[in-house]
């Protein structure tokens, strides 16, 4: 998830592209820009889903948050978009309420530092990107 032209906000998209290079036929990779209602359609029919997005929680840049949607509520202020009325967190909680949450769902949040216009990641976020790619490849 993310906007590729908003610096650190692009980290989810860049990780997806790196994973796509592995061409593992066992998983599908989708880049998505925001709308939570559409997100529920995207994961429909899949048992194992990983969502990766930048977050802005006020913690140290590059911090990695790993949330298991099947074990905990996703805080709505966490994956939030001021211009989107229905966020990622709300999509997860709506799916939980409707009984349509995939059997396994992990959300990775990477604390961003710079969300201004641009296509470069800051160094702490770039390092975390590599950590997450390695962790995901090992887990699959």
């Amino acid at each position, binding site marked *: 998830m993310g906007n590729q032209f908003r610096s650190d906000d692009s980290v989810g998209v860049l990780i997806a592209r790196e994973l796509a290079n592995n061409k593992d036929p066992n998983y599908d990779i989708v880049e998505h*820009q925001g709308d939570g209602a559409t997100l*529920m359609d995207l994961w429909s029919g899949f048992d194992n889903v990983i969502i990766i997005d930048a977050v802005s929680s006020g913690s140290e840049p590059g911090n990695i948050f790993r949330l298991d949607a099947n074990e905990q509520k996703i805080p709505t202020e966490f994956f939030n978009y001021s211009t989107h009325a229905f966020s990622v967190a709300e999509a997860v909680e709506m799916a939980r309420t*409707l009984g349509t949450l995939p059997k396994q769902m992990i959300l990775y949040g990477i604390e961003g530092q710079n969300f201004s216009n641009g296509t470069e990641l800051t160094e702490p976020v770039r390092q975390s990107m590599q950590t997450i790619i390695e962790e995901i490849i090992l887990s699959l």
Partner: protein
Amino acid sequence: MKQTKTLKVDYLARVEGEGGMTVKMSGDKVTEVRLNIFEPPRFFEAFLKGRSYKEVPDITSRICGICPIAYQSSSIQAMEQILGIEVNEQVRTLRRLMYCGEWIESHALHMFMLHAPDFLGYQDAIELAKDHPDEVKLGLFLKKTGNDLVNLVGGREIHPINMRVGGFYKLPTKAELNSLLDNLKKARDGSIKAIEFLATLEMPSLERDYEFVALRHESEYPIDSGRIISNKGIDIDISQFESHFTESHVEHSTSLHSKVIERGNYHVGPLARFNLNFDRLPLSIQSLAKSVGLEPECKNPFKSILIRGIELLYSFEESIRIIEQYERPDEAYVVHEPKAGVGYGCTEAPRGICWHRYEITDDGSVATARIVPPTSQNQGTIEDDLRQFVSENINMPEDDLTWRCEQAIRNYDPCISCSCHYLKLKFEQV
């Protein structure tokens, strides 16, 4: 000394963009109402200057993630007017089909996810889904069919890229469009169920003598073209907008306020369209509307949720009609050369008329651009609604009054991001 009170919502939820509300009261009088808009201004009109006319639809589509097609369509209409391009009827109806997709996405999201919780006393759609899962699933399904339409005709769901000055980059095949028909027909039937559900909602009482402004087409329910009319005598070509409407800056908003020069605040959106174009709806939809207590002139803004349902049903029927009659044109777009001129565009975004004016130079560069989005046109009217609603309900407990005021703001499905090219709620007892 009179008792003073302020009702405040610092940060409005379930709206697009960043804004809030302040209502100040002294005794039994409302002394001040402000819809505060603090979404940063976005300067689209300024940075369109110097860009090629060809880029304008792709840039303006970025103004909004919910109604990009409105911005694309109005800007393309203006450019094609300047360049003397007339697209063939199949291309025009294909554009109307994509626009129906945007109405479906936007109305379904607003009715079920953003506005229905207000009527039923839920904090949000997730709470609503606990007690009304079938209705929420239906809302999500209806929205999805809109997404699928935009995806197919527009090239992608958000900020579609397939429409261009002169036509489209790539035309869908009849078979591709036909693949959507089954779901569109299910969604059409579903939208009738949605209207029946919405008709059970208790509507707060508020009636106002609005000046409704909408497009009016010679035969169609207005979406992509028409004259600008009002119930108080306006009936003009879209090029005459600036002679009848004016925009001004107010301190508490980064979005301009628009007014009818002679009369003041006015109302755009589903309620205006419905009241001014009821006779343009198919008879079957007119009958259904009457059966749920809707007919012109409807002056209760809370009923806009039900009218969105009517427009949703219309969008499905219109989409099915267009697809069934579609024959793929030979040419995707009209080849043309740039030339200097001034052009106007005006289409019905889900929230109301979206008016554009451009001046381009000989080489096709934009010299000036002006964009008037729906939410800036409704801002003054939203404040008037709040003033009257609070005045009529001044003794209501503060929490309930705040709740109703937020609900009243959402009657307009305000898109703050668009208007700044704006919501938070604030009540003060002063």
